[in-house]
């Protein structure tokens, strides 16, 4: 389930082709994204000052990231003062090692987990399994993914690609293997499914001595961690175990509690379409007579400092993982999350993955191109990340890297030729005449049904227009310039 598990993924177009053929997936996605999209639009529409809120959210993130070094040191100091311990992890591997060692030191062989993107990003569950430690996901959707031996396909709703009949089948098949079995007469009513999950998880909550979480926010001036959730399972994991280990990306820092006010309005409305999420848990270090006795905060870099160095790309670090951009994305809605080959799918995944992981793999090089640049993501993003802007920026990075290769790609040759033609009106005129003649050769009854070469991808499903016999500029010269 980690980003490491996705390595060797085919490029986006290839993975998308398979996903597009899965009719059940298409229906599940269209239904789920459509529902959340509408809910979000309704609750956002209620606020007169939504645009001001978005701007405030963006500004806070930008300011914090500019002085991140300062806030991180402040955070470390406050967490430590409150009885917690801070660990710095350069990359996923180091973070996994730190967490594994911490669990080993407790002598435990199993842990319960709060839904967390950061631990998925670093492949923590796999690393723990290798060390003989069982990690149990407790978020309902994560549980479905884990029991189904599946990959998450959405940030907020990791099992969005499953419908309830499929979930029932997974529960019946797999629950017994990991703990309390599902009742034999389990139906596919959401309430029955939730009840089965509750029974299954309860014994794990009561038994677990170690909890693992991420955090939505870290408040620097008090050293407080914040988890926002819907089910309450997270709160169980955060309060019942004796040891709590939180793995959090460094960009989750906000300066003060006052800044939280902005994000606690932006996040639930953007993500679940609720005015307020049901559970907001906050904790500051440890307390003598309440909650975990030991608290470890693992601060993860994992490519974030490099991303921060890029003036255009760095806005991706504003992300509060609300998933609004996924839900409105016309590409995501049809293809789903798996084709993105990362725990971060959709528009944010297309700009985050290639920055955090680099562009060395086929799938990461294809991600910036997995968008029509329609801009729907930018419109809804609660922290105003201009995703299309970052996408075209990363496309240029991919192209510029390919220039270093000696053999030019057919695409580069075509682009170079096009630039040559478009640099001079006379060349354009000549090309237009050639295109017109060529087009007429290929056309039948005013349309072209088949084009050669890479352009056949166009005509496989669409007719192409016939270039006009007389270009506009020729018409103008003939009818206007002659008059003058």
């Amino acid at each position, binding site marked *: 389930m980690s980003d490491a598990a996705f390595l060797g993924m085919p490029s986006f177009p290839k993975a*998308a082709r398979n996903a597009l053929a899965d009719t059940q997936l298409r229906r599940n996605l269209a239904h789920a994204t459509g529902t959340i999209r509408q809910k979000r639009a309704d609750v956002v529409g209620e606020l007169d000052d939504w645009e001001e809120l978005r701007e405030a959210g963006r500004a806070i993130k930008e300011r914090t990231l500019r002085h991140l070094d300062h806030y991180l040191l402040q955070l470390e100091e406050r967490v430590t003062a409150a009885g917690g311990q801070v660990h710095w992890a350069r990359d996923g591997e180091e973070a996994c090692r730190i967490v594994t060692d911490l669990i080993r030191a407790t002598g435990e062989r199993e842990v319960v987990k709060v839904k967390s993107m950061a631990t998925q990003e670093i492949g923590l569950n796999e690393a723990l399994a290798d060390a003989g430690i069982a990690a149990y996901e407790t978020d309902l959707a994560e549980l479905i993914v884990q029991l189904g031996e599946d990959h998450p396909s959405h940030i907020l709703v990791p099992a969005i690609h499953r419908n309830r009949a499929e979930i029932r089948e997974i529960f019946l098949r797999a629950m017994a293997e990991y703990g309390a079995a599902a009742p034999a007469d389990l139906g596919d009513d959401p309430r029955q499914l939730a009840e089965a999950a509750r029974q299954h998880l309860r014994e794990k909550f009561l038994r677990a001595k170690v909890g693992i979480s991420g955090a939505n926010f870290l408040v620097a001036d008090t050293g407080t961690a914040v988890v926002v959730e819907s089910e309450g399972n997270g709160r169980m994991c955060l309060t019942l175990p004796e040891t709590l280990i939180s793995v959090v990306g460094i960009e989750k820092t906000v300066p003060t509690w006052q800044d939280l006010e902005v994000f606690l309005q932006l996040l639930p409305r953007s993500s679940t379409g609720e005015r307020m999420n049901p559970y907001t848990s906050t904790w500051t270090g440890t307390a003598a007579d309440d909650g975990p006795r030991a608290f470890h905060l693992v601060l993860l870099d994992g490519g974030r400092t490099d991303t921060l160095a890029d003036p255009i790309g760095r806005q991706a670090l504003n992300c509060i993982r609300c998933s609004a951009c996924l839900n409105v994305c016309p*590409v995501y809605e049809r293809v789903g999350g798996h084709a993105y080959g990362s725990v971060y799918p959709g528009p944010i995944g297309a700009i985050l993955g290639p920055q955090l992981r680099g562009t060395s793999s086929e799938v990461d090089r294809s991600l910036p191109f997995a968008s029509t*640049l329609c801009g*729907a993501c930018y419109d809804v993003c609660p922290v105003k990340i201009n995703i299309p802007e970052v996408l075209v920026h990363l496309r*240029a990075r991919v192209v510029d890297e390919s220039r270093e290769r000696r053999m030019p790609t057919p695409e580069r040759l075509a682009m170079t030729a096009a630039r040559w033609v478009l640099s001079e009106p006379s060349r354009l005129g000549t090309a237009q005449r050639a295109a017109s003649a060529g087009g007429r050769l290929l056309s039948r009854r005013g349309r072209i049904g088949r084009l050669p070469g890479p352009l056949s991808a166009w005509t496989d499903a669409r007719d192409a227009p016939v270039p006009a016999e007389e270009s506009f500029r020729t018409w*103008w010269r003939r009818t206007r310039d002659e008059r003058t």
Partner: protein
Amino acid sequence: MRIALFITCFNDTLYPATGRAVVTLLERLGCTVEFPMEQTCCGQMHFNTGYQRECVPLVRRFTEVFAGYDAVVTPSGSCAGMVREYHGRVAEVSGDARLASAVQALPEVYELSEFLVDVLQVTDVGAYFPHRVTYHPTCHSLRMLGVGDKPLTLLRAVRGIDLVELPAAEQCCGFGGTFAVKNSDTSVAMCADKVRHVLDTGAEVLSAGDNSCLMHIGGTLSRLRTGVRTVHLAEILASTEEKPATDGPQPSPLPRRTTEGVRSR
């Protein structure tokens, strides 16, 4: 006011009827339109595909050609968006400070509906188009330029028109420039839904402010022999009782003699 038409290389080559319609329309509204012959392309295809360096000469030419005009009008939301949003970025990439200030000094570049409603302040352009029409608001017009319902306001004032609302109108049609080829499967899946919505309206004409999106949706409408044709907004607005927009398949093949000459080879 000195008004320049930026036809865009795409319309120039594939959809000259749209350019002729813009000229007809603006002249009917009392404007004098100039067409600087030295113009070529705004660089959008190169820029959006990652070939930013290749855009530099195109942007330089653009600034030289259109300097000194009071306004530039273009029948393409996405090309207007390219100039407004990204020419500055291209200048930055070039590292040429002179180019950067030339971009800064460019006259305002308007998409057609913006020019009509905001600059000329007309909503009834005196058009006549007796057909059932549905309108697709293209993404760049809608979200990059923020033209809002200016195109619809213009269409509503057209005499004889039966304007029907397009369901899920604001969803992208799946064109996306080179996306349509690089990710053709996804592009076609998106277009299939757009086409379904168009057919649901029972319209005979689909209109938009960008021929690139119309080429994409229209290519599918044509492949499926749906009997729905695409007409650029400019052509509807230019159409009058005396001079109706052509009904032929688009882009209209001109005189038959030459076409036949080629075929009967």
